[in-house]
């Protein structure tokens, strides 16, 4: 399933532009959840960890792949739950509106 290098580079560059475009719309208020959400997304290396570990024939690769698997899973699971927990905290003013300030 080899993809030509030029195609891959094209995809890379387009992804960079897409990333800048989408992320520049994130308000300052949500920058911490953005970071932890981005943390979660780079947990996608778990795909690499599974491929390496799942295809390992010798002990060296198995050990390296195993450590990568542990790290990547912690990354995915932790990143997701922390983001969810944080985003759950952002609330608008609770229903009963206070008497107007001034």
């Amino acid at each position, binding site marked *: 399933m*080899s*993809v030509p290098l030029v195609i*891959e580079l094209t*995809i890379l560059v387009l992804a*960079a532009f*897409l*990333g800048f475009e*989408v992320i520049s719309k*994130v*308000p*300052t*208020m*949500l*920058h*911490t959840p*953005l*970071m932890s*959400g*981005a943390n*979660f*997304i*780079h*947990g*996608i*290396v*778990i795909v*690499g*960890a599974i491929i*390496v*570990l*799942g295809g390992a024939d010798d002990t060296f690769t*198995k050990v390296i*792949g195993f*450590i*990568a*698997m*542990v*790290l*990547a899973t*912690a990354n*995915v*699971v*932790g*990143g*997701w*739950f*922390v*983001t*969810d927990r*944080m*985003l759950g*905290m*952002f*609330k*608008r*003013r609770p229903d009963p509106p*206070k*008497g107007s*300030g*001034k």
Partner: protein
Amino acid sequence: MISDPDVVGLLYLVTIVCFVVALRFLSSPKHARKGNWVGGAGMLVAIATTLSLEGIGNWAWIVVGGLIGTVVGLVGARTVRMTAMPQMVAIFNGVGGGAAALVALAEWHNTVDPGGDERVSIVLSALIGSISFAGSAVAFAKLQELVSGRPIVFPGQNIFNALVLIGGVAFGIAAIAGAEEQWVLVALIACALVFGVLFVLPIGGADMPVVISMLNAFTGLAASATGFVLDSTVLIVSGMLVGAAGTLLTLLMAKAMNRSVANVLFGAFGQVQTGVGTARADDGRTVRATTAEDVAVQLSYARKVIVVPGYGMAVAQAQHDVRQLADVLEERGVEVLYAIHPVAGRMPGHMNVLLAEANVPYTQLREMDEINPEFAQTDVALVIGANDVTNPAARSDPASPIYGMPILDVDKAASIVVLKRSMNPGFAGIDNELYLDPKTTMLFGDAKESVLKLIAAVKAT
């Protein structure tokens, strides 16, 4: 088992779309959480697809590794305090980078006679991933105060660091030029790890928002490079999305401090300026201390109060008490807003998360540009554990190391109350002119205790 490469590719495309939607939904707190669920679903699709690829075995290893990772991640995510969020993000950056470097090492070990582009991507993945891993570990140690948050410097540091990096790059070039031995890549990883440690060590706590953002970008790029190694578009795209996010935040943070990224990384801020400001304090103006009772009267009879939180509030875990104080004041008809400087705290958005945890509605949190014009109509600016982001020297004193940094115009308020532990200068080691302003009074003590006293005093007023 899925054997058709087109089906595999389409499933990974679903993942990519989910990730982009997740980021897209982050544009407002209203649907951000939903977005995270979409992202989670995308990740599950990617994992399930990968597990069903042809030739995947070693199931026991995969399951055990996955379980350990899940437990570690869950426990960490559930128990971390919001004040410790910068450390948590640093750790996740680190493990992601470490995983990318390990995948590269395994591929190097297994690929017989790799092609040129494969060599390049293995080298990049190992190099960036390792730097991110070690750098994040040091950032974590600093934030957790396992090592001093102050810059750690030694003579010839930049030159030494450069030599280590050149060493790493040299091994990288050897690997690209055709070396086959395993130790070449191991040596490269070793150099990158040492460099990662060295390059974060001299960076002070106040500059952590820049560093964490940058490590975030690094890990993303490492994941993307891993994608080139494995010919996996989902890794290339997802990694690059994170790379873009981290880069954008790095630039935003550096801009909010009016410094170049290079200056943050190599400037060893906070080292040079001890002593610069001390002469200025001798011009006859003095700092005025006050009591909780006096401040309570000021606050109770104000029409509008702006709270300016900083790292000090996080350290004292005072966010819940600050909210209570605001509640008490609002009951008396005082309008309360929060002014959030982009680099307040130790990571982008740090203060917002803390106040959100304390149930402060996000509609009360105002960004710098939005709130600055309002200080002029404000009766009391209540500065809680913030320092450099309020220092008027950034506007007026070209000799100041923070000159040119956009600040909160706290000094435009009718009166200013600063809650501060003692007269020690802020993290950057600079004296704050604001404290000598005749409109300013200081309430010394632990931020949490001071706020509790204020709540009691306001209730009694």
